[in-house]
């Protein structure tokens, strides 16, 4: 499936992706409602963007009490059905990566929806730190292990 891959070593912590994400989804610049996050520990020289990995065994999906989270049969992406979501935040708790978001006004969970196939964050990242890549989703534990060994991450 196609999803957004982050290459933190190319990131400069400019947060352009957060702006682009919120602008696409909210029509305004409101990083508090972004679905991609830049962590910027400048002093530790540690920064990069993270967003939904659409895990093969998505814990958000497995833990949703109202079955509001599904995997799209064609694109393979994990998505939230807003009509079914009751805003209980179980998925936020379940996500090992902290990349399930919550829309405070709509009171629903939200994750990266790949902008319907035209991800704005990737488009705006002139540094090549974000890539819209064709990769198979991994199980969350495998992904976590990869992230903890940065050299092996792809």
């Amino acid at each position, binding site marked *: 499936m196609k999803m957004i891959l982050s290459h933190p070593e190319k990131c*400069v*912590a*400019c*947060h*352009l992706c957060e*702006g*682009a994400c*919120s*602008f696409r989804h*909210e*029509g*305004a*610049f*409101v*990083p*508090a*409602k972004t679905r991609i996050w830049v962590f*910027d520990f*400048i*002093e530790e*020289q540690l*920064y990069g963007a993270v967003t939904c990995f659409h895990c093969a065994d998505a814990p958000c999906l497995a833990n949703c009490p109202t079955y509001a989270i599904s995997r799209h049969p064609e694109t393979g992406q994990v998505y939230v059905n807003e009509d079914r979501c009751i805003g209980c935040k179980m998925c936020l708790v379940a996500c090992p990566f902290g990349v399930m978001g919550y829309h*405070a006004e709509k009171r629903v969970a939200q994750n990266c929806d790949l902008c319907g196939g035209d991800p704005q964050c990737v*488009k*705006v990242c*002139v*540094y090549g730190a974000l890539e819209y890549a064709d990769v198979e989703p991994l199980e969350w534990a495998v992904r976590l292990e990869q992230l903890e060994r940065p050299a092996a991450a792809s």
Partner: protein
Amino acid sequence: MPYGWVGQVLRIDLTAGRVTKEPLNMEWARQFIGGRGLGTKYLYEEIDPRCDPLGPDNKVIFATGPLTGTYAPTGGRYMVLCKSPLTDAIACSNSGGYWGPELKFAGYDMVILEGRAPQPVYIWVYNDQVEIRDASHVWGKTTDESEDILRAETDPQARIAGIGPAGENLCRVACVINDKSRAAGRSGVGAAMGAKNVKAIVVRGTGAVPIADPLGFSQVVFQALEVVNKSPTTAKALRGLGTASTVGFTNAVGILPTRNFQVGQFELANNVNGQTIAQTVLTRNKGCYSCPIGCARVTEIKGASKWQGKGEGPEYETIFGLGTDCGVGDLPAVLYANYLCNLLAMDTISAGGTIATAMELAERGYIPPEDLAELPFELRFGNPDAVIGCLELMAYRRGKFGNLLAEGGYRLAEHYGHPELFMGVKKQDFAAYDPRGAKGMGLGYATSNRGACHLRGYSMSQEWFAPPDKRSDPFSIEGKAALQKYVQDKAACEDSAGICTFSMFAVSHEQLCAMYNAATGERLSMDDWWLAGERIWNLERLFNLRAGLGRQDDTLPPRMLREPLTGGSVQGQVVELEPMLEEYYQVRGWDEEGHPRPETLARLGLA
């Protein structure tokens, strides 16, 4: 509902301890674009320009632009405005980082600090909750320490702009530092904040910056992003080597100011240029908010040097101020001095210029031996211990000499009876381009409203960096008046919009104006746009005239006017200022004394 703006001003009366919120004056916002222009309008209307810059009647304004917080390329700037403690003219210092956007997300376009707090305070802004809090526990601490403490007691995602020991001690070259290493550097705005007893403004915001025409905005932004990403200046030089990429060039042509502008080439320039930084100290590149250039350098001193540390920098201007201008070519020492300036919150240009002035005064024997005897280092060019030692004396006003240094280079040189050895204009130190090798910069320094400054009118782009067919001969004075007016008005528009002037090496003003229109819903034509830039420049001039400045202050030190440069391609050049200045006043529509003529003011809507 306003667009581009969030429509609200936060006003803090420190004397009374009162916080009020008021709607942004949209009529002024339309006339003065935002940020620098709009802040100047508020300052012009609200304070007496003759007031004591360190007294309670001065105000310190933190202003954002309509593009701040959006994804317009480099849309992350804010400005600090006040009457300058260094120049007694208008001060407007521009900074990037993350603080400005956060202020807008919290729901404010501007913060106005007025009066004076009875004891040290900081301001905590969490969306619509605003508190004036005791800051006695962070008073005296470096920017680094106080940011950590304030973040721990407010919000882990809070962004902080504040002062260090230099600002607290009213050092006239003190700056405001945000996000630990981004500086609203020039004109001593940190001292003005210190005089108000305000340590920091801590902000966390979760709101939105609305856009009038989202589709139109995204279209022009993506065009602009593309040109930034293709331009050799922004995508290669600045992204690749940071502003330090300039060192090699200015040194080669002979306009890299060295040893208090005595020469324009530095024998150790290769030790402190962009390549050396990339090879020896650079750990990562960094960008400010919404920046597609990424010129910031995260660095760490490695190896056996006696100077150790890590942080951000050095910028080109810092390499000059704390390096070449003081004759220091030891990169770890320059970098350490840079980190120290960030911790103590001092402008690296003016702190460096002050030290260079002191060094020349000392070498020429103008400082009595008893004043030098108290110093734990030898005050001479090329001595890094002297640079670092002076920075500490200056920030803490230690001893008689520290007290003098803290007054800035002009007052220091004047104290010892040789004001001609101060290299600057309106008591503010020059930036890192010797104007004898770029005459337009000479006129720009002389007429800059905030004192000597390269960013108020960066004619370097046309005089040295433009392709040959578009170049304005740097040694000629012909056409420099019109060129300066153009670059000055241009910079006024850029600063006011809330974007960084660096993106404008690639983005056109047509694109910037289109972004402004799409964001705000205004329909400014290009004529309106340029007129707004000119209006801002003239309003700053009016502020300065009312503050008591005039033609006599639009000048350069005798060294620039009479002592020819030696070495490089610039051999024998001086600045022929008078004819340029006369022509400049005409081009500006000002009289012989530099006052805007009534018809000029009427044309600009300033009458």
